């Protein structure tokens, strides 16, 4: 919403400056977005008079002017063709800054003649208009005064209107708020009825029948004998200042009143109408050639304004070209109607038309404004275009929106936090146009017709606070218990701990989109349904992610393209398993690419492998509270590993039948499809599947039972078939004598020709921890035998010779 200061002053009697007005508007909730003040920086330019202008002795194109300021007489060299004696001009004296260049003007000599100032053009003052020569001020301009008092410098104020404040869509409403806030006095409205001199030959025909509420009121009037010429300068200037294009006087008047009062109107060329006029629903297939040059196909949910022949315009949104006024228009038919917000919003959205009328009607134009709007428009037309007006013709009637809100003024304190005397509260409401009755804690407040947004007493509190000033709300700390409680749930603490644990492992946390290209999603979907968006932002962000891995892989790929092939990324966030609320699960995913480190003198660099991903998975699981020792690993697709992993270098970690995590090298085919280079290893941990410990009775940990007896370590090397997994062997060893075996470590894996085809050697270090007495050789021997027997039974392994 844009308006100019002089326009505002048509409605508001105030001496406030633009800055004061801006501050007050923002404070009252009409946030000022921008102020263009063309007079800013022109305070030191003064009106001067050219007493004499003669040829410069050394230059054909320059004039030597004797300029009078009332207090001094200066000699100024000027190159403008229109510099001549008798002219009132804008003078810049040495020391002032020229807006167009930003330079400070200096006394100088031009072609050997001293120049004691400069006569300015509009362009040099950064003002709009013709800059071919210097400014020619009115001949009656007083010499010596600042030019800001003489030039029509009208500051333009732009406010960012919140959608509830349709009343402030008009300059009048803005003036009303400022007056209520104490920044002047609201001038009376000139909306007296214009007496008609004849009966309108055209009547209003309301053809909506059952849908009458879509356009409850339609007021019209014929005005004949008009001359639709160019608008006067003041009107054109105002429209131009707020970004509108002047067309012709009648069109400009309707444009003007939309801004002035927030009251959209329409004028038809009466000669182009047939029979009666009024609203009806569009018929299927009907089209309207609108004023914006486009033709719209309408459907029967839309309201059109029609005569007896055809649809003339899209009701409340845009008029039609064939019935529009032109310079030749001699009589007009004026429309001032009211439309239901929802139908305007729906129609505007469907047709994708943004007009000032739509904006106003879909937010709710003052339902009582149709008649005064018609009268004010009529008066302007008669003033600017001549002619005579008919009596008003009516269709339907303004809906009665009168309502009374029960209001206890103490609510201003109890909800708004501001202690304000009842008298002040009443006065603010009345200045805004509310009627206040009742007393004590039982007021009855009637909002004015233009405030459809005010529904309950809470709205009244806001009105009072707004005008009193939100900055007068005293900040009071939120009362609280002396000792805060824990803000996070156990689940949230688990997530936070897991996140920081992964970062401790050298992984960089990232945040990627919840969306990804559908093609990539398909590679990582498994059995999950595709969750696509109906209106994606772009074709490659069209599906909600079924896995976090593809986005991480793409991120690693982008980093590799920047020369950083070694990535260690993680993300914790949702994967989507369905289209409904709640069909999402929290995943911790890691992805490593390239090598474990940069090249290094110590030679510790190697390519990442599936066990790096397994380590990440185990770390996340442990941080998230899983009992690691109870997990089983299962390898490859046979073990239930998803298909986007390398079938021979991947696995899952399970608790019973529940898969808690999957890990491994990403499938080379998948990497190719993602257009990234491998190897990449990744893991996905299903954090919500991890059983969380039951709430403990206390914080005490089980007592530490540290044995006083020396542990004994024995090494065993077993030869087993190549297919035997390390985990099965380790499990067999651990299970051989649970009471004594405290730890089993795998310290060597070896395959070689002398072991035989299809064989490998696994060497373990077994720690025996006695609890009651030092182990005897016989006991150690006994355990050793049990271990060998257990491995033989479980894995078919034999002790390596």
């Amino acid at each position, binding site marked *: 919403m844009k308006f100019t200061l002089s326009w505002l002053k048509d409605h508001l009697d105030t001496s406030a400056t633009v800055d004061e007005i801006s501050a007050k508007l923002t404070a009252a909730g009409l946030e000022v977005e921008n102020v263009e003040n063309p007079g800013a920086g022109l305070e030191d330019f003064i009106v001067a008079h050219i007493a004499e202008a003669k040829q410069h002795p050394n230059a054909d194109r320059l004039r030597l002017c004797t300029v009078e300021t009332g207090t001094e007489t200066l000699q100024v060299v000027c190159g403008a063709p229109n510099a001549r004696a008798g002219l009132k001009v804008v003078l810049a004296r040495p020391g002032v800054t020229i807006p167009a260049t930003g330079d400070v003007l200096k006394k100088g000599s031009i072609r050997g003649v001293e120049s004691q100032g400069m006569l300015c053009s509009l362009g040099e003052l950064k003002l709009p208009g013709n800059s071919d020569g210097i400014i020619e001020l009115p001949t009656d301009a007083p010499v010596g005064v600042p030019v800001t008092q003489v030039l029509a410098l009208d500051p333009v104020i732009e406010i960012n209107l919140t*959608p509830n404040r349709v009343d402030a869509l008009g300059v009048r409403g803005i003036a009303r708020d400022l007056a209520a806030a104490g920044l002047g006095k609201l001038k009376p409205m000139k909306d007296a009825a214009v007496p008609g001199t004849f009966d309108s030959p055209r009547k209003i025909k309301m053809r909506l029948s059952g849908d009458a509420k879509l356009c409850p009121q339609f007021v019209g009037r014929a005005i004949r004998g008009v001359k639709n010429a160019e608008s006067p300068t003041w009107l054109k200037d105002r429209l131009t200042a707020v970004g509108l294009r002047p067309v012709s006087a009648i069109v400009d008047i309707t444009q003007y009143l939309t801004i002035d009062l927030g009251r959209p109107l329409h004028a038809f060329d009466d000669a182009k109408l047939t029979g009666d006029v009024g609203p009806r629903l569009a018929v299927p297939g009907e089209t309207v050639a609108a004023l914006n040059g486009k033709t719209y196909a309408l459907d029967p949910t839309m309201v059109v304004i029609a005569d007896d022949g055809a649809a003339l315009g899209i009701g409340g949104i845009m008029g039609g070209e064939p019935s529009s006024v032109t310079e030749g228009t001699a009589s007009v038919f004026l429309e001032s109607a009211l439309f239901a917000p929802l139908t305007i919003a729906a129609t505007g959205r469907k047709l994708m038309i943004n007009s000032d009328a739509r904006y106003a009607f879909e937010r709710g134009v003052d339902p009582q404004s149709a008649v005064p709007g018609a009268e004010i428009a009529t008066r302007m037309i008669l003033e600017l275009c001549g002619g005579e007006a008919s009596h008003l013709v009516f269709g339907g009637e303004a809906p009665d929106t009168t309502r009374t809100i029960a209001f206890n003024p103490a609510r201003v304190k109890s909800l708004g936090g501001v202690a304000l005397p009842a008298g002040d509260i009443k006065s603010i409401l009345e200045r805004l146009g509310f009627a206040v009755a009742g007393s004590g804690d039982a007021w009855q407040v009637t909002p004015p017709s233009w405030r459809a947004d005010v529904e309950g007493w809470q709205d009244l509190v806001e009105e009072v606070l707004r005008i009193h000033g939100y900055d007068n709300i005293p900040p*009071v700390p*939120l009362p609280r218990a002396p000792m805060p409680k824990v803000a996070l749930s156990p689940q949230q603490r688990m997530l936070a701990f897991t996140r920081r644990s992964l970062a401790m492992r050298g992984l960089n946390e990232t945040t990627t989109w919840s969306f990804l290209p559908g093609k990539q999603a398909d590679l990582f979907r498994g059995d999950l349904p595709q969750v696509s968006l109906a209106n994606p932002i772009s074709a490659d962000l069209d599906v909600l992610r079924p896995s976090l891995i593809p986005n991480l892989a793409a991120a690693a790929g982008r980093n590799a393209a920047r020369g950083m092939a070694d990535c260690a990324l993680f993300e914790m966030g949702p994967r989507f398993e369905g289209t409904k609320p709640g069909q999402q699960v929290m995943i911790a995913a890691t992805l490593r690419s390239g090598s474990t480190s940069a090249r290094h003198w110590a030679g510790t660099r190697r390519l990442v492998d599936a066990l790096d991903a397994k380590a990440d998975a185990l770390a996340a699981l442990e941080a998230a509270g899983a009992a690691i020792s109870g997990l089983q690993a299962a390898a490859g697709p046979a073990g239930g590993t998803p298909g986007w992993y390398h079938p021979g270098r991947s696995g899952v970690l399970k608790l019973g039948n529940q898969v808690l995590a999957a890990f491994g090298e990403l499938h080379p085919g998948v990497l190719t499809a993602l257009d990234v280079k491998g190897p990449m290893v990744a893991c996905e941990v299903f954090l919500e599947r991890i059983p969380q410990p039951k709430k403990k009775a206390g914080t005490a940990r089980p007592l530490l039972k540290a044995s006083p007896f020396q542990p004994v370590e024995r090494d065993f090397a077993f030869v087993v078939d190549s297919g035997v997994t390390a985990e099965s062997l380790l499990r067999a060893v651990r299970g051989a004598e649970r009471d004594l075996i405290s730890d089993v470590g795998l310290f060597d894996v070896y395959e070689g020709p002398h072991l035989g085809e299809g064989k490998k050697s696994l060497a373990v270090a077994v720690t025996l921890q006695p609890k009651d007495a030092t182990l005897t050789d016989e006991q150690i021997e006994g355990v050793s035998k049990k271990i060998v027997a257990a491995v033989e039974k479980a894995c078919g392994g034999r002790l390596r010779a």
Partner: protein
Amino acid sequence: MTDNIDQLRAELLAAVTGASDAPALEEVRVTALGKKGRITGLMKDLGAMAPEQRKAFGQQLNVLKDEIAAALDVRKRHFDSAALDARLASESMDVTLPVRPEARGTLHPISQTMDEVAAIFGQMGFEVADGPDIEDDFHNFTALNFPPGHPAREMHDTFFLPQAEDGQRYLLRTHTSPVQIRTMMTQKPPIRVIIPGRTYRCDYDMTHTPMFHQVELLVIDTETNMSHLRGCLQEFVRTYFGVDDLTTRFRPSFFPFTEPSAEMDIGCSRKNGELKIGNYGDWLEILGCGMVHPNVLKACGLDPEVYQGFAAGMGIERIAMLKYGIPDLRTFFESDLRWLRHYGFAALDIPSVTGGLTR
């Protein structure tokens, strides 16, 4: 006898002093104190002596033995120390070598900022709540007093899912506010929650990304009013930005789900194109807030004549950008390693109001 002992002492001490290295010294020790050593030999002879003589001679021998042992010890320590010096002289490494590589992980600024926000509001008695990214129309709009067809809905640029078989048109939540509804429908007042999370709007340019993060505040009880709202938020911004006397400005605004509604600005400076938070006379909009709208309370089964409270919401990325001087919103989602390492936070940098919010 005494002369013999004195002579022996002189000989042995000379031998100790004369030993050139540790093996030679060991030889001297064997010669003197070994099983067949000279002192040992004399000791053995004691048995054959008369008692008085034995006593006197034995005492002298013991003194000699101790004396020689001490001399051997001193000499041995000299050799040990010399040997260690020699070893150390031969053992050296270039300690200016770079250490073996260790990867340093980081937390994303969004996570860190959420933790900071939770730390501050946790101090004021708030708990953290969360809700789903996919929402229904009721929780995202209707219950929040966006009437069907209202233009305010359009301002949200909503991502929709295709119409579901149950006839619903599910959507990606456009704000964290639906969790207000979920909280009020499942918890009895008094309520104090903050709701951080992912949010989505169909908008992508310099200052908008289709996914971003918000944190929502909700307080419901019977007393909390706009003074508390302002006080609570003022405490927050002062603590979060670490400016103890940071000025705030409250302006009227409009949100369908609050009444009265406000926007809060904080003091700043934009001098020379550089944004600084502080009391420099200029203002920066930071968040939207207001008293929970009676229609919202009603939608959640709470009587607006009894219960009241406030809600507020702000952008996580926005406050992170302001605090940490991150210039471009879009970079939050690019996973550029250089960015993650530069703007990321150390794993152990856990924000706490009492332990320090910002390192």
